């Protein structure tokens, strides 16, 4: 049986292979997505983001357990950074996600971001498409440990959870722009630590000052994922956000906005792909780089020259 037939028959090994091809095989990516995409749109997508070490994997593990208790199937993508120097990556999110390893309703995949900026891998949305088409009820995406401007997760999630710890306190001002703005739910994790309460109330103040969509102000919740406390509260607010999105075409509006952004990204991907197949691209790049380096040509003008060559 061919790979996609096995995938559609519910073969988990085939699902895993399909994700690999979507990651590696630029030539066949599009053909695979043509088959999968019409089968998507049913899954609920939850994004989990926050600084390194804030507890994203542990929270994912805890939420997964609750989703399973309620009879949902779960797909998880966890992204870790690739070294820009060696291309290698150490993917350690599985370490903290072993609560449900033997439940066949869960499928968890680690992804290296392959130096894609934005907190996800270029292929993360494609892997989500595969999980959705495979029939997972809920997809959880865990980003790399992020700072202020790695916000891609909000382009692929219905609900974005921003996870912070009491130690994130000093960076709150910076987080007002960026991370804070994509949060649908804010969680102060490691709430047993000193200063957690004060941090949570400061966060609430910032949320109160912010401008939010009509009808939904991001709740600030305290939890300890390690001790499994406060997680039920997080879960309830995630459900409440689903109800909120269900009203007045909000989910549809969000997905339209995300569709636009996905097309823009795909355009960039096509251009870059074009660049790699262009026979003389490397030579042209070298020639132009020389002129840019000696100040003869601006990078923008060089890019325009490349682009004209690519269109021909």
């Amino acid at each position: 049986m061919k790979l996609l037939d096995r995938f559609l028959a519910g073969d988990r090994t085939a699902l895993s292979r399909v994700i690999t091809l979507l990651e590696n095989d630029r030539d066949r990516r599009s053909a695979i997505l043509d088959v999968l995409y019409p089968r998507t749109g049913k899954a609920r997508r939850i994004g989990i983001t926050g600084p390194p070490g804030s507890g994203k994997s542990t929270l994912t593990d805890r939420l997964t357990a609750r989703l399973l208790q309620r009879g949902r199937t779960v797909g998880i993508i966890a992204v870790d950074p690739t070294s820009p120097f060696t291309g290698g990556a150490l993917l350690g999110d599985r370490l903290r996600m072993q609560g449900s390893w033997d439940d066949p309703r869960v499928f968890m995949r680690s992804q290296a971001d392959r130096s894609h900026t934005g907190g996800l891998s270029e292929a993360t949305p494609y892997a989500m498409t595969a999980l959705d088409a495979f029939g997972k009820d809920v997809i959880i995406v865990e980003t790399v440990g992020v700072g202020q401007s790695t916000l891609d997760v909000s382009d692929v999630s219905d609900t974005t959870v921003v996870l912070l710890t009491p130690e994130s306190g000093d960076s709150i001002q910076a987080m007002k722009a960026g991370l804070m703005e994509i949060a649908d739910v804010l969680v102060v994790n490691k709430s047993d630590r000193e200063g957690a309460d004060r941090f949570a109330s400061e966060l609430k103040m910032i949320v109160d000052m912010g401008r939010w969509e009509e009808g939904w102000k991001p709740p600030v919740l305290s939890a300890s994922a390690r001790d499994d406390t406060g997680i039920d509260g997080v879960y309830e607010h995630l459900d409440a956000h689903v109800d909120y999105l269900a009203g007045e075409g909000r989910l549809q509006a969000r997905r339209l906005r995300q569709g636009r952004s996905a097309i823009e990204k795909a355009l960039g991907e096509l251009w870059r792909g074009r660049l790699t197949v262009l026979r003389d691209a490397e030579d042209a790049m070298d020639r132009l780089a020389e002129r840019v380096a000696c100040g003869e040509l601006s990078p923008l003008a060089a890019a325009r020259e490349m682009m004209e060559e690519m269109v021909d």
Partner: protein
Amino acid sequence: MAENIRVLVAKPGLDGHDRGAKVVAAALRDAGMEVIYTGLRQTPEMIVEAAVQEDVDVVALSILSGAHMTIFPRVMELLRERGIHHMLLTGGGIIPKSDAEELAEIGVGKLFGPGTSTRDIIAYIHEEVGRRRVADEI
């Protein structure tokens, strides 16, 4: 040379000595591979489930407890049950030559003992993965 090589590094059994596994994981990462590290106390079932979901090219096990004659055959058996034949099952630890030969007969790859240079492991993985990768018909 095969690109984007994915390796699962796991530590089965109950002993807590994961230094070797960590050193190897870091060396493979620095050699440009994507290393999925699952940590201590992994059962063969957990290892194979992770290998399937992560679609790795290589499963590398560190076994110091003497349980290698149970664990390697069991992991191999579970992989075969799932219809997986292309993955390289390899590893390291204190493993007598005669045991390694016996394991090689059921398809287990080279096993590396103390004092092995990580360069040898990296070269071996490159060679094996290049040979084993299969092209899927979609």
